[in-house]
């Protein structure tokens, strides 16, 4: 390709750069800049995480004593309902897709913003609105029937129920719009030369996520609209006495909510695929397999929903196809995990905080994935469904998978968002605290569930009589869960400390090779003065950078700045 003669360079590209907005409100509140919106998502998500996390801690205090006397059963039920709701819709979706996706994806494809910046702002502002609606339910009696809100139990909870529906429909609109926005951005706004197979893997993952966001989330809105009508107007969709079916809701709900877990986990896969090559100083192994397996997971994810309903309500013959498709998801997931292992094989690994999180992810996530195969297996699921085994499984996938990967991405891209590095020391202490907390809290839940402890129990006296060990393990979990609180508190401290006195990052502190590191940190308002030209995939560390037309003079072989390299041999400790 004759680069010098590329048509792009014949034009003055800066003629379309708009000046950055002036004034606090336009700059930081109603900003249409994807980088500012990403930070807004992050702050809101972290705030909601503190709230939902404190619900979880209240639950763990309740379960200290098998009699469960710390709070009323009804309050406990509200706690787990709100914990689930807030964590899924107001923490994970804003943090993983909203924050990381918004910050990184446009930079990685060499775009100046997302396709519809104004819509992007709207998507963000719907999140706090939804949060307000959701928390207002505490004044009228918060919903108490679990984050799944199965009718008929969810029909009898007063005004909290419809408000809950409204709040989640608002989040649904927000994430549909985000999905649409990202989809158009990735389809239409990639830098010249960036073909599909030259796209960075995080962008691939964001693309697969956008697909789910767009199509599954609308189905959720429909399900909740139907539930809203049933709650407020007594419409008989879910009333067996008038020909309705309570199972119908579960079909409609899980058609979204199974893909929903892929909304958190696919971007997580993307983060891992970025972090591992950078710190292993080695090209990603099996680029195409990783990229296409994201798509495969997204598409298969639409056809597995009924595995949440095995123990009752669906025809027995229907269990088998859903089981088989669920098993099949194990194959692309396995390919990803093996490819990541092959990526770090033969590298020169630097144990920075993001790398620690990324490597821990391989272990915790594959463990969570394997317990998922147990739950997909119909006969075994007949034992495990609705037990603490399920709780353990999805917390391993969500906390051990999505949140762990989010932290990897957070430590990795924080310098790009703020221009400062986070403290590695606090980061590593936080990492070990988080991992200890994660294991201590969720690992014992596996055997508690297998022994017969059902989930959503405010007290477990009968179970504790049959299995006296249960008291010990529940207390062990309660103590461990506070380690995770400490880890997240440490993240907050780290942010405050580093924003004020963290080390300056420079353009490319990690020596990474994707486009976002080719511009200054924090990224300028217009991202790229000149739109870069992409000649190849970014990941081969033995080749010079495959970019032309960059704004800044860049070392053809990017290297980490000495300052971020760990001093001691292994660097895994502090």
């Amino acid at each position: 390709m004759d680069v010098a003669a590329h048509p792009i360079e014949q034009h003055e590209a800066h003629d379309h750069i708009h000046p950055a907005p002036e004034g606090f409100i336009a700059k930081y509140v109603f900003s249409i800049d994807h980088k500012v919106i990403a930070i807004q998502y992050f702050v809101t998500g972290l705030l909601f995480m503190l709230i939902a996390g404190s619900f979880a801690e209240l639950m763990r205090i309740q379960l200290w004593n098998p009699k469960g006397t710390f709070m009323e059963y009804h309050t406990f039920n509200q706690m787990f309902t709100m914990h689930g709701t807030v964590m899924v819709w107001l923490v994970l979706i804003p943090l993983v897709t909203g924050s990381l996706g918004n910050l990184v994806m446009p930079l990685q494809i060499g775009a100046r913003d997302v396709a519809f910046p104004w819509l992007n702002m709207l998507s963000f502002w719907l999140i706090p609105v939804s949060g307000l609606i959701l928390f207002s339910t505490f004044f009228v009696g918060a919903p108490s029937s679990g984050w799944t809100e199965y009718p008929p139990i969810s029909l009898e909870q007063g005004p909290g129920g419809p408000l809950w529906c409204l709040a989640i429909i608002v989040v649904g609109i927000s994430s549909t719009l985000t999905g649409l926005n990202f989809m158009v951005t990735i389809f239409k706004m990639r830098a010249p030369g960036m073909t599909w197979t030259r796209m960075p893997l995080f962008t691939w993952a964001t693309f697969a996520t956008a697909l789910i966001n767009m199509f599954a989330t609308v189905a959720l809105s429909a399900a909740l609209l139907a539930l809203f009508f049933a709650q407020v107007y007594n419409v008989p969709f879910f009333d067996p006495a008038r020909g309705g079916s309570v199972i119908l809701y579960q079909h409609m709900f899980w058609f979204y909510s199974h893909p929903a877990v892929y909304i958190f986990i696919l971007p997580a896969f993307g983060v891992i695929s970025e972090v591992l090559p950078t710190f292993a100083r080695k090209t990603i192994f099996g680029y195409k397999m990783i990229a296409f397996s994201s798509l495969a997971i997204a598409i298969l994810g639409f056809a597995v929903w009924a595995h949440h309903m095995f123990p009752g309500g669906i025809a027995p013959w229907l269990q088998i196809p859903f089981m088989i498709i669920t098993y099949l998801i194990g194959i692309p997931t396995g390919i990803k995990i093996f490819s990541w292992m092959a990526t770090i094989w033969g590298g020169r690994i630097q144990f920075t905080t993001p790398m620690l999180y990324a490597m821990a992810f391989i272990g915790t996530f594959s463990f969570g994935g394997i317990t998922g195969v147990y739950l997909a297996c119909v006969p075994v699921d007949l034992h495990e469904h609705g037990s603490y085994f399920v709780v353990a499984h999805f917390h391993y996938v969500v906390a051990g998978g999505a949140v762990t990967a989010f932290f990897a991405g957070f430590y990795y891209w924080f310098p790009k968002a703020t221009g400062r590095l986070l403290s590695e020391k606090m980061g590593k202490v936080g990492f070990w605290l988080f991992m200890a907390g994660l294991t201590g809290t969720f690992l014992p839940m596996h055997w508690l569930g297998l022994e017969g402890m059902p989930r959503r129990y405010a007290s477990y006296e009968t179970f504790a009589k049959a299995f006296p060990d249960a008291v010990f393990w529940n207390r062990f979990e309660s103590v461990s869960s506070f380690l995770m609180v400490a880890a997240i508190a440490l993240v907050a401290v780290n942010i405050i400390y580093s924003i004020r006195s963290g080390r300056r990052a420079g353009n490319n502190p990690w020596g990474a090779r994707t486009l976002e590191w080719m511009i200054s940190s924090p990224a300028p308002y217009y991202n790229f003065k000149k739109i870069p030209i992409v000649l190849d995939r970014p990941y081969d560390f033995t080749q010079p950078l495959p970019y032309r037309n960059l704004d800044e003079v860049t070392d053809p072989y990017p290297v980490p700045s000495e300052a971020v390299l760990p001093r001691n041999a292994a660097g895994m400790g502090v």
Partner: protein
Amino acid sequence: MSQVAPSAPQIVTPKGLGPGFIPVTIVMTVINIAVMFAVLYLPLNFLLPSESNAASDSAVSIDGLFKFMTVFGVAITVYVSGYTAYFAFVFRRRPGESIYTVGVPIHDAPKLEFWWTLLPTILLVVLMGLTISVWKQIQFPDTAAALTTEVVGHQFNWEFRYPGLNGSLYSPTSEMHLPYGKPVKILVSSADVIHQFWVPEFRLKVSAVPGMVTQLNLTPTRAGRFDISCSEYCGANHSIMQGSLVVESPDAFNKWLAAAKVQVANASGTISLAGGDPGVGKTTFSQKCAACHNAGGTFDQKIVGPGLLHVTDDPAHPKLVDDKPPTPEDIAEILVKGYTGPIGAMPNRQANGLSDSDIANLVAYLVSLK
């Protein structure tokens, strides 16, 4: 970036698969084989209740599937995390190494990728085969059921019905009885919301769905007493919705059934409210109800539940919270069944520990309040 870049990065090529790869692999394989033997031959009662002394025929085959998955699941976990940790250690950046050092640029290894796609696929296909055979045995058993029983979920207790018993056999301490050695069919339904009937020792559960009848087919294999829990969230007192199941010899079961028939024939079914003593009721109220209800307050003077001074004569609330007229019988019904609704939840008589005479006394006391 003050350093001048050398013309190309320095590539470090590992020797073979890495130093110590084979010993590490051997260690992990030994661990896996040990785990395999432990899973297959040691009693797993700490993990699966009464694994070594199975309580139902399905439990044996479901445990078999569980063990199959555990053997391979543990192996995959050990290899994945083990190799990740090993690679991390062996291929770590050495202190003082040039920052231009990079790893070997291997993009693909088609043979390796082929195998790591094929092997999990084969494993999953085998698992599918095993699963389907077990599933078939559970869902469509060969032998016809010798006994059909019914279970009905209520907020918050289980009701058990047996053939030949007119109506239900249903009392606060009621138990489910099953004979061992005979195939039974349990038909499960619900009177209000979704519940889930779970006996962990049987390894089986099924949802009690309003408007539907679901079923469980199994053969209990040994005598014993087991807990039945509700494992689908069903309301405020979900966590105390327990029942117990007694599996006994067919003879003992028949004896129990005959006695139960007599008991049902004799039971009147309703609580006699005549003879309730308001004075005794007041004492009972202060012990069991006063924590949540204010006997001297109007409806809106709540503690947790509404005040009960004008329970029968409040013009603002001419009906009870369940929309029924405030007759003594309907007050008694709330005491028996409890209440869940927009204004909160009240436990039922089992949870509150109310006997028939307690209820009669309480109703007499509440009706006397003006």
